[in-house]
């Protein structure tokens, strides 16, 4: 949908709840260089939701929704879990269907949108938890990558099943004692970023969401590469402060501690050769655009 079509009927504008009036007035649909800096001075694409106070997943949602390059033409796919408490409040179309089938849903969706809107940008972004991505849905996660499906997969890695009350997951650290891991988890955290690279992803990043500017960068890269080249994968640490026994204001520090060199979420990035080329082209275009804007401003 172009930004022009996200508008309220004039004759009924006055009765629309204010959050929708705000959305139309000051959300950043259609803004070319939208990003985390719009936060605080624009209407965000998320309404009030019921995640816990201080949940890092909430932060991640804010940065991601602020950074999608084309929210007016993006459809998201979620899965069962804490994220589905936020998705109803997100101002881009999004789908919940079953637990673990998100990459299968996205495969069908992306192909349908390509058939129906040839030549138009329609981005698809999957956002699911680690249980959905790595355990119950692993076959569909990997197979979508093998098939080179052109969409982005984001995994909110909180290293356990949060929504069901803190059970062991494949991305949990070895030795962690949790429900269903009564003597501590017996095997290593699954190395999905590496598997993603070997499975055909063109852009893979493993990081935390402690820096909004970094999240913005990786989201933009991931979506652009998925649009033009092939699958991309982001694994973002969004700790469940409730289940790891932290207080509501300690999520940020937990992420900062976990991204130190040699820690689990030290920044890791893989970019395929064609993706590197695309990013270079995009950067050049961006530079050109900014220079032109500067010149225009100078003339005025």
């Amino acid at each position, binding site marked *: 949908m172009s930004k022009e079509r996200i508008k309220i009927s004039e004759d009924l504008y006055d009765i629309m709840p204010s959050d929708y009036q705000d959305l139309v007035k000051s959300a950043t649909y259609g803004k070319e260089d939208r990003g*985390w800096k719009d*936060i*605080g*001075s624009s*209407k*965000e*694409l*998320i*309404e*009030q939701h019921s*995640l*816990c*106070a*201080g*949940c*890092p997943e*909430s*932060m991640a*949602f*804010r940065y991601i*929704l602020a950074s999608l390059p084309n929210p007016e033409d993006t459809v998201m796919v979620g899965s069962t879990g804490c994220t589905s408490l936020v998705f109803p409040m997100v101002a881009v179309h999004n789908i919940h269907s079953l637990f673990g089938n998100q990459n299968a849903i996205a495969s069908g969706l992306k192909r349908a949108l390509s058939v129906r809107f040839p030549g138009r940008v329609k981005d698809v972004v999957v956002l699911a938890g680690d249980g959905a991505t790595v355990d119950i849905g692993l076959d569909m996660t990997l197979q979508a990558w093998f098939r080179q499906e052109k969409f982005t997969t984001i995994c909110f890695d909180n290293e356990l099943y949060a929504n069901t009350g803190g059970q062991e997951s494949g991305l949990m650290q070895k030795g962690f004692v949790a429900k269903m891991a009564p003597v501590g988890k017996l095997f290593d955290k699954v190395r999905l970023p590496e598997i993603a690279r070997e499975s055909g992803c063109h852009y893979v990043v493993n990081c935390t969401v402690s820096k*909004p500017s970094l999240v913005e960068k990786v989201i933009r890269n991931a979506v652009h590469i998925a649009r033009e080249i092939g699958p991309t994968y982001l694994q973002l640490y969004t700790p469940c402060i409730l289940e790891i026994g932290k207080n*509501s*204001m300690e*999520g*940020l*520090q937990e992420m900062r501690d976990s991204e130190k060199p040699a820690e689990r979420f030290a920044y890791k990035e893989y970019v395929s050769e064609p993706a590197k080329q695309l990013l270079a082209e995009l950067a050049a275009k961006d530079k050109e655009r900014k220079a032109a804007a500067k010149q225009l401003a100078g003339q005025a």
Partner: protein
Amino acid sequence: MYNVAQVIDEKCTAKKGCRLCIMYCPEANCLDLNSGKMVAEVNIDRCKGCELCVVVCNAAKHEAILMQAVSATGQLMSKKGESAALGQAYQG
């Protein structure tokens, strides 16, 4: 009855470009920039009281955010910047 964040305008450094609390607040449009006064402002209805804003503000030594009690209907129980009277905090 619970606590929400409140920004002390005089101490807020938003006019100097600080956006720490706005950036790190987990909730959307909960801490917004008041572009008239050029200070950060809490939307009480959206604040879940996690105190992360206090942590980042204090770490930068601005100390411009306090947690203050609100009633069940979302009214501040004392003037902004003043702590609630003893015993008032958990009456609801």
